[in-house]
Each structure stands twice: as C-alpha cells, then as structure tokens.
C-alpha cells in the first residue's frame, strides 16, 4: 500500500509541476498578479509531494519490502540500516527520485528566502524549475518507476553493489546532487532574466548566493568522491578522469567561472551575456553529466545503468532544455548585453582571463570525455583518452590560471597601471621564482620541473594573498578589522581568500603525492618485513573474519619507522554473501603529512602468502582538505551580510512589472 502511495505522490507532483510551469510564467507576461502568486505555494506543494514519495521509498527499504523491485535489486535484509538508507540512491531509479526531491527542495528554498524579489522574477524562476521537474518526473514515471512491484516477492534482496556499501558513498551522491540541482537555480534566474529582457546588477546579486551555495555542495561532493575512490577502490589513486568524475568536474569548473563572472556583473555591470551563458552551461553540463552516467553512452567504471530507451529520453530532454535556452539566449542576449567598460589592465581583465581558462579547461574535459565517441563517429576506431592526456592539458593550462589568481585580487577595478602592479608584486614574484628554481633541482629535496612548478605556484598564491590581506588591514585599521569585517559586509573577501588558499593547498597535495608517492608490489609470507619509503611493514598473516553481510580475509601489518611502531593496519579482502567480485578494503594510516596505505591483492600459494601493495602517500590529505577550505570560503562568501541588506535595496519598483 505504501509504495502505491509513493507512486501516487509522484503523479500528483507531476500534475503540480505542470501547473507550476505554465501559470506563474503566463501570469508574469499577462500581468496577472494572482497567477504569479501561485508560484510560491506551488513550489512548497511540489516539495511536500516529493517528500512523501521519498519517505515511502525509504520506508520500503527500512522494512525490507522486497515486493518492490527496486528494493529487491538493491537491498538485502542483512545490510546495516545506514546502507539501506543510502541504497535508496545507490542505483538509477532512486537516484532520480533524490534528484527531483532535491530540485523541489531548492525550489521551495527559493520561494521561501526570496521574499524581496520582484514578483514577476520569482514567478518566472519557479516556472522554469517546474519545467525541469516535469522532465524528470515524466522520465521517472515512464521509464524508471522506483515503486514498481514484483509478484511473487523474493524472500531476499540481491544486495547493494558492495563497492557502494560505504559511508563515504552514502553521503557522496546527495552532496553532488545538491550541487547539480543547485545550479538549476542559477539557470532559472538566468532564463527568467532573459525572458524579462533585463540583465542587471540586481539579477546578478540575487543569483550570487544561490550559485555559491550550489558550488559549495559540488565542491564537497567531488572531494568526497575522490576520497571514497582513494580508500575504497584499493588502487591508492584519488582521481581517475573517469567519465563519471568528469561529469561532476565540468559543472564545477563552469560554476567556478560563473561565481567570478557574477561578481563582475554585480559590481561593474560587465560580462552580462557571458555570465548568462555560463549559468546556462553550468546547469547544462549537470544535465549532460546525468545523461552520460545514465545512458551508457560511455562505458565507465561506475556506470550503473545502461539502457538506450532511457538515454533517448534524456537526450530529447537535453535538447529541449539546453537547446531551448540557447535559442532564447541567441534571441535575447544581443539586446541586453553591453554595460561597464574596462581597460586592458584591470581586475575585469584578469577575471576574464580566469573565466576563459576555466571554460577552456571545462571544454577540454568535455572533449576528453567524449573523445572515444568522436573517434568512433568519425570512423577512426576506438580510443580512450587516458590519464596522461588530461594531466598534460591541466599542467599546461592551470599555471596560467594560478598566475592570474595571484594578480587579479591585487588589481583595481576598471583601470590599473602596470608599473603600480609591478611595484606591488615584484617581491612576491621573485620569491616564487626562487622557490620554483630551488624545487626544480635536487638541492633540498629530490625535485624536478613539476615539483618546481607546483611549489612555485603555491608560493605565488600564498604570498600574493598574504600581501593582499596585509594591505587591506593596513589601510583599514589593523588586525582587529578582521573581526568587524567578518561580522559585516566584507565576509566575502575572506571567503575569496580562504578558497584561493584552498587552491594552493590542493596544488601542494597533488604535487607532492604525484612526485614523491611510492607504490610497491610485493609477495609477503606471514612474518615477512618489507621496507618502503623509510617505513618497515611487517606482515603478520591474514585470517578469516565474519562481517554482517560478508566474509573477509583480514591481514595485519605492523608499521615501524626506525625502532618506533607507528601504525597497525588491517586491510581486508571481502566476499559479500550475495555474491559478486571480491572487494578490497585498504588499511590506511592517515596523517596530516602522509598516508600509509596497504591493500591485499590475491593469496599466493598455500602457505598464507599474499600479494600485497604498499603505498606511501605524502600530503595526500591536503587534496581533500583543500576542498574543505574552498567550501568554507564559499560559506563565508554566501553568508556575506550585504546579501541580506542589499537585497532589500535591490528590490525594484513595481514599474518593472509593466516592462516585463
């Protein structure tokens, strides 16, 4: 009965979405206030029905209702409760339900927190979100109903893919989806502004905090995914350029560009049409990501659904949404663009460079991800663009981005003088160059050009930002300024500062682990000792242990540095009761400056020998801590006091209604 209730709630949500997509929008053009005022309650109603559907499916999982096909294929009565919850979004149908549920949640949030927006604007934003919801709800009801029943019901479920039975993966998809779906708000704002024919500073100011919040979720989601891949896949890697990862990275790159571009549009009324294009692209890439993952167009390590009918549906949806918005863009943008002028040397220019580079990186990732398909279509045979290609592209382009990041915040809006910039920056530049030179040699550490580049750029970022902060404090009343800034309207400055330092931290992590990490494959008998990267790993053999829904071979390793024992590691090889490939659970000793990482390969021979992989991963944590720092920066920026106060000031007079 309860699953049917969920199904029914989905159908009602679709009905509401239809009303939501049509009437507020129509009202905004016909000048009917009553129709526009429907927008807010409709958004809340949408959330209510989807919350009911979500709760119904959750109930089916928690009570092991295997008469629901989706539960039977993705759950198992032996599974711990937390994974029964996360199994809800562990496969296709459920992750779609999560998608629309979050979409409705964002819509309701916009309806609730944008009290000061002009009514036609909010009506259009919510209508656009309604249109997106229609697409996803139809997709679910027609091709991927999570509430479908099976008769007779199986006695036991098939179990969730063991790879996905993990805490990191339990929270990774909701975070990522919050980001993807959050970008729909920026998208809806952009479309609403295009429809209204008014791209102004007020529009940029409304979009900014929403975009930043979506970006925070995306950042955290990607960092979690990387962390999960690191400890769960047992290869010790933190990024694989897998299509699914790329699908989340492309919107992130474009959203990062969008955040910066919105700042320019708000402050200087420049880049208008470019900002709109970025807002459209960021969400389009989120949709494209969903398409790539769901359709099986590209075979990927974690493609969990390959079904061409679904693919065709999503593609049609993509063409309508993205194609439609780009047509609207081509039609309306020429009339509304233009605005603040700026000189060649100005903060606007550096932000433009940053934007172009980020967009170029996103295009490269897109190209690399689709390359196999392009080759196939052109009849050049099957290729896959791997690791080295992506890495080379990023090593070539991102240093330029980082150089601009150092200069940009030090430059004045509208117009600046090169001699003035040189005067302020030459010390930082010389010091960074020295770090680059030193780290490129083998004098202090066994460096090379890559290490030099990484550490030199880090020094550049850190020095320029310290300089920037010290100048700011000197001009405006010393260190106690920070506290008042953080309380008031300058929080976003510190947000920028933290996020940029996050980038520096990321560069350190990526540089160190790629250049100084070691990986050793050995065969070890119980009692064997093997030395790697200055640590001695002693293998004490492996024994069988029983988990809730798996059996495992559990190895024990004692790790010594000199005479001191620094860690005991217990890597496992698990076989899940419900079958499937054996899973590797790495044993990791995490540290701020280094991780020690052991994974069990295969048993060898009959005397308890194992093929073992020993990793030393210096500074690997910094990669994810960088994500935390960036997210904190985003939180500061999104909660800046001026959005609360200025939003009131920005409210436009009712005369705007007539224009619309």
């Amino acid at each position, binding site marked *: 009965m309860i699953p049917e209730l969920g199904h029914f709630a989905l159908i009602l949500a679709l009905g509401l979405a239809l009303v939501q997509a049509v009437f507020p929008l129509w009202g905004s053009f016909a000048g009917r206030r009553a129709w526009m005022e429907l927008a807010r309650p409709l958004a809340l109603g949408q959330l209510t029905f989807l919350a009911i559907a979500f709760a119904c499916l959750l109930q089916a999982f928690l009570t092991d209702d295997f008469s629901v096909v989706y539960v039977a294929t993705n759950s198992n009565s032996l599974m711990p409760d937390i994974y029964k919850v996360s199994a809800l979004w562990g496969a296709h149908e459920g992750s779609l339900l999560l998608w629309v549920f979050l979409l409705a949640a964002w819509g309701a949030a916009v309806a609730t927190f944008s009290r000061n927006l002009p009514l036609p604007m909010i009506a259009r934003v919510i209508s656009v979100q309604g249109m997106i919801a229609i697409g996803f709800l139809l997709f679910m009801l027609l091709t991927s109903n999570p509430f479908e029943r099976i008769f007779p019901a199986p006695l036991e479920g098939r179990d969730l893919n063991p790879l996905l039975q993990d805490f990191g993966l339990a929270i990774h998809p909701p975070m990522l989806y919050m980001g993807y779906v959050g970008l729909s708000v920026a998208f809806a704002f952009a479309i609403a502004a295009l429809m209204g024919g008014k791209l102004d500073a007020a529009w940029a100011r409304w979009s900014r905090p929403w975009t930043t919040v979506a970006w925070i979720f995306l950042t955290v989601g990607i960092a979690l995914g990387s962390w999960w891949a690191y400890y769960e896949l047992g290869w010790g890697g933190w990024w694989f350029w897998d299509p699914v990862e790329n699908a989340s990275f492309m919107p992130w790159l474009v959203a990062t560009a969008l955040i910066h571009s919105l700042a320019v549009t708000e402050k200087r009324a420049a880049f208008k049409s470019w900002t709109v294009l970025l807002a459209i692209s960021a969400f389009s890439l989120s949709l494209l990501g969903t398409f790539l993952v769901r359709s099986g167009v590209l075979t990927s390590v974690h493609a969990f659904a390959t079904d061409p009918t679904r693919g065709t549906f999503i593609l049609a949806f993509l063409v309508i949404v993205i194609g439609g918005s780009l047509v609207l863009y081509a039609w309306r943008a020429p009339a509304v663009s233009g605005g603040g002028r700026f000189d060649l040397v100005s903060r606007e220019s550096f932000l433009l460079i940053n934007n172009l580079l980020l967009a170029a990186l996103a295009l490269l990732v897109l190209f690399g991800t689709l390359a196999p398909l392009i080759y*196939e279509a052109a009849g050049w045979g099957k290729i896959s663009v791997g690791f080295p290609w992506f890495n080379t592209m990023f090593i070539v382009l991102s240093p330029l981005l980082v150089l601009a990041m150092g200069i940009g915040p030090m430059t004045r809006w509208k117009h600046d003088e090169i001699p003035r910039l040189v005067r302020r920056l030459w010390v930082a530049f010389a010091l960074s160059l020295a770090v680059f030179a030193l780290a490129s040699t083998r004098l202090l550490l066994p460096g090379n050009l890559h290490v030099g580049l990484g550490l030199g750029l880090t020094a550049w970022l850190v020095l320029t930002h310290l300089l920037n902060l010290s100048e700011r404090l000197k001009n405006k009343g010393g260190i106690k300024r920070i506290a008042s800034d953080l309380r008031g309207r300058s929080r976003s400055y510190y947000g920028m500062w933290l996020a940029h330092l996050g980038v520096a931290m990321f560069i350190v992590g990526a540089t160190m682990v790629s250049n100084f990490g070691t990986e050793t494959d050995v065969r070890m008998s119980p009692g064997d000792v093997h030395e790697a990267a200055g640590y001695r790993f002693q293998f004490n053999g492996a024994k069988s242990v029983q988990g809730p829904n798996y059996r495992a071979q559990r190895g024990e390793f004692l790790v010594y540095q000199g005479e001191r024992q620094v860690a005991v590691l217990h890597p496992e090889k698990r076989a899940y009761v419900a079958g499937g490939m054996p899973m590797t659970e790495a044993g990791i000793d995490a540290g701020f400056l280094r991780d020690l990482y052991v994974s069990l390969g295969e048993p060898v021979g009959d005397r308890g020998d194992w093929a073992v992989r020993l990793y030393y991963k210096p500074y690997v944590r910094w990669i994810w801590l960088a994500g935390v720092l960036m997210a904190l920066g985003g939180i500061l920026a999104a909660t800046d006091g001026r959005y609360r106060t200025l939003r009131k000031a920005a409210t436009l007079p009712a005369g705007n209604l007539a224009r619309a």
Partner: protein
Amino acid sequence: MARSTTSYLFPLGIFLALAALLFYGLRLDPRLVPSPLVGKPAPAFELESLTEPGKSISSDILKGRMSLVNVWASWCPSCRQEHAELVRIARETDVQMIGFNWKDERPAALEMLSRFGNPYVLSVYDPENQVGIDWGVYGAPETFVVDAEGVIRHKRIGPIDRKVWQEEIVPVIEQYRPRG
C-alpha cells in the same frame, strides 16, 4: 562589447553538434564495441594449463581452427549462470572452446568444472591477470571469437545465453568460418 548577432548563435551550434554526437553514441551498444582488439591478431600468451599443472599452453592453439575463448572464474556468479549453456554449446558446435580461467584459485576452479561439467577442450590458468591485461579483460565473463588465422573477430562482455549464442555469436562464427 559590440558583437554581431550571429556570434550569439555560436553556443547553440556547438550544442547541436554535441547532441548529434550523443544521438549517434546512443545507437552504439556499449556491450558490442568496446574491444579495440576486434579485427586484430589475438595477443600471444604462454600460460600454465588449469587442468594439468606444470604443462604449458601457448597461443599457437588458436591457429588453424575457429575458437571461442571464454574468460571465467569460480567466484563470478554470472560465469556460473552461463556455464550450463556453455556445456550445451560445447556439445553441439565444432568450434573449439578454450577456457581462460582468470584471477582464480586452481582448486576452486577445478571443483566448479567437476561439479558443473567441463565445456573446454583446453583451459589456461591466469591467476595473476598477466595475460588478461593484454586481452583487455576487465571483468568476467567475457568471450572472444577468434578465427582460424588467430584474429579476434568478436568480443562478448557478460554471460552467454541461448539468445546471445544464436543471435550474436553464431553469425560471427559463420561469417569468419574458413571456407572450402
């Protein structure tokens, strides 16, 4: 920032090209095309026999006869699922079936063969994935159709059932079977 109106159509153009590409991509079956090895000579190998430890088997066995090389392992449930079908196929076809035991343990593998029947003329044993890598194996079961010249003609990812055998594998075998 005066730009011609047509430049605003540029993003739309890019997207439409992309959509066309994706539409094309949808019509490819990812299970049919992924091997870059199709049309190329099968990678050479020299592996121990699964059934006769110590005896070595080389890729020369692929020459002169049409072969099916079936990658399997005892830990793989889908392999168990297709096993009965393989036994049936072995009885009715003249194509030589070669078992490629992958990332497995010998006792478990032998037990599975003795319990469910052995469809293979020969079985090679690759516990460390030494040759599997050359063949581009990334999961079990996978099945390769290799012609009498030792050229890979088809790769099937996933289990073989009656329908797959008749509609997917047999036509390939018929197409590349040596004539005369």
